[in-house]
């Protein structure tokens, strides 16, 4: 098991190194002269040269890359090319907001999806099962920002029950924090609940067909008893995968809902930096997001080995399951 975890850790580090090179190349080399991007096409050669000297972009690329990565390792994300302010404190503030939002949304999704998906599987052929199945199918197709827009219209504008947007840190005023966070969490959480319900349902259906469950029934357990004692742990593997993948995707995907509710999350900061073409800020924020995504994927794989002992010997196979979902199923 330790060997498997070490191999996963090595994979995590390799991915981060390769990702950092890709991000650096795409954002620092491909756009051409960063000075021209920052100062515009009408800048004089002297101004461009002065800008390059000031920001160190006249040094060899390898030196610039190592300087950037060294900074990242020390927790220094650099100084914005556009605003001239340090990026680290800004990101630190924003990352908390996004983690709270995404964490609460996923919690809501799980609280709804696990019982609902299990019920839909157990009552597969009944009206209830069909209803849950159909509703989750529709829920998956609805973009979370549409849910957000509709919630603003119905709950905030028409009914006036909750604020339409904004953010209050939980430490500042807990009651106001909950009033402000409720709608964005609901917008993100309901769509996630629909997605996770489908996976819980299919995982439980799959487990219900397994021999060990039939054996447990034959040994005298009730259907619920067999499912609770033997089934849910096995159904847990694909569900953990989808939760991990959705969590990773939500870190970035929450940005649209952050925009609807004017929540100052990391995604919003990234979008603003993209709009301003603040390349260094984009570069550093993207690396922070990639780090979070890769760590979530690592935790999912590590959890596999706890949930399913068979995977302990199959070095590095875990990511594969997560991967198909990450690339194909996540939003």
């Amino acid at each position: 098991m330790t060997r498997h975890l070490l191999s996963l850790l090595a994979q995590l580090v390799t991915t981060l190194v390769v990702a950092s090179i890709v991000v650096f190349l795409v954002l620092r080399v491909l756009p051409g002269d960063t000075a021209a991007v920052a100062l515009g096409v009408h800048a004089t050669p002297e101004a461009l040269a002065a800008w390059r000297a000031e920001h160190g972009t006249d040094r060899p690329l390898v030196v610039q890359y190592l300087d950037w990565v060294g900074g990242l390792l020390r927790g220094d994300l650099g100084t914005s090319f556009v605003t001239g302010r340090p990026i680290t404190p800004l990101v630190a503030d924003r990352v908390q907001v996004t983690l709270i939002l995404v964490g609460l949304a996923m919690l809501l999704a799980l609280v709804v999806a696990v019982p609902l998906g299990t019920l839909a599987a157990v009552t597969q052929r009944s009206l209830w099962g069909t209803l849950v199945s159909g509703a989750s199918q529709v829920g998956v197709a609805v973009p979370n920002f549409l849910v957000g827009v509709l919630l603003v219209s119905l709950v905030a504008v028409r009914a006036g029950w909750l604020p339409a947007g904004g953010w209050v840190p939980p430490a500042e005023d807990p009651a106001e924090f909950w009033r402000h966070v409720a709608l964005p969490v609901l917008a993100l959480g309901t769509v996630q609940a629909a997605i996770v319900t489908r996976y819980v349902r299919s995982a439980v259906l799959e487990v219900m067909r397994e021999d060990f469950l039939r054996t447990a029934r034959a040994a005298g357990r009730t259907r619920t008893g067999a499912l609770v004692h033997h089934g849910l742990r096995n159904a847990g593997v694909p569900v953990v995968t989808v939760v991990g993948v959705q969590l990773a995707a939500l870190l970035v995907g929450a940005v649209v809902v952050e925009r609807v509710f004017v929540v100052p999350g990391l995604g919003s900061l990234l979008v603003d930096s993209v709009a301003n073409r603040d390349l260094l800020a984009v570069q550093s924020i993207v690396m922070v997001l990639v780090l979070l995504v890769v760590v979530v994927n690592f935790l999912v794989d590590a959890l596999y080995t706890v949930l399913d002992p068979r995977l302990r010997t199959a070095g590095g196979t875990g990511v594969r399951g997560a991967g198909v979902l990450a690339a194909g199923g996540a939003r």
Partner: protein
Amino acid sequence: MSLLQPAAVDVPGRREPGVHAQLVVGAALVAVVVVLALVSLVWTPYDPVRAVPLDRLQGPSAAHWLGTDRFGRDVLSQLMVGARISLYVGVVAVGIGALVGVPVGVVAGMRGGVPGTLLMRGSDVLLAFPGLLLALVFGAAFGAGTTTAMVALGIGSVPAFARVARSGTLQVVRTDYVLAARAANRPALAVAVRHVLPNVAGLVVVQCSVNFALAVLAEAGLSFLGLGTAPPTPSWGRMLAESQQYLGTHDYLALAPGVAIAVAVLGFNLLGDGLRDVLDPRLRGVR
């Protein structure tokens, strides 16, 4: 699948009722979107980008079925052109993903060993970049727009296609006819084209449908953020974003593009599920 499990094979003449319902509903919804997009190439009720200040913010009526926006532009006409943009982004993104991902997966599956592992690990690095993140990175590097978005979404979907193609290939390469072809010294490319690709095609088609839905959603999200299709070209995401300031008074402005996105995504998802059921009856009812 265990040996004791009754094989859920497709028995001719005993088709479960409703089995193809997903396929039919999905295809119908997709057809609606495709027809809207095709018709918009030759006809729209009004010029979708022409502002008519006198007609601004009119609710749905006989003259404007879905109403008009803040500039007096016809919402239905914009929706029709928006369908075109969504489909365009979907086709190009899925095309890039499949054209790059499938060969990677097939080669990795057929070669195996170190080259196969390296190929898959290479495409796995992309998993660290969710599609939307890649689109934002490309937007920063090359300027945001429809082309940037669909190329980024396409590259982001490469690992999904590679994995699906690889798993399909691994099943096929162990079959007798592939072993026979290899024993007869057929070149690897011929084996891949003649035997592997036709067997992987079904899986790839299903993946195309799933990824099409994701691309439509992602494009809408990017346009909502102002980083997708640039104005004045209508796009569903931007229509939704622009409707925000009229929430509570002119909700139809949000509902029209919102429902359009949901219909398109639901259509492609159902189509994918339906195709999966038809192509692999063992999975019927699992999802």
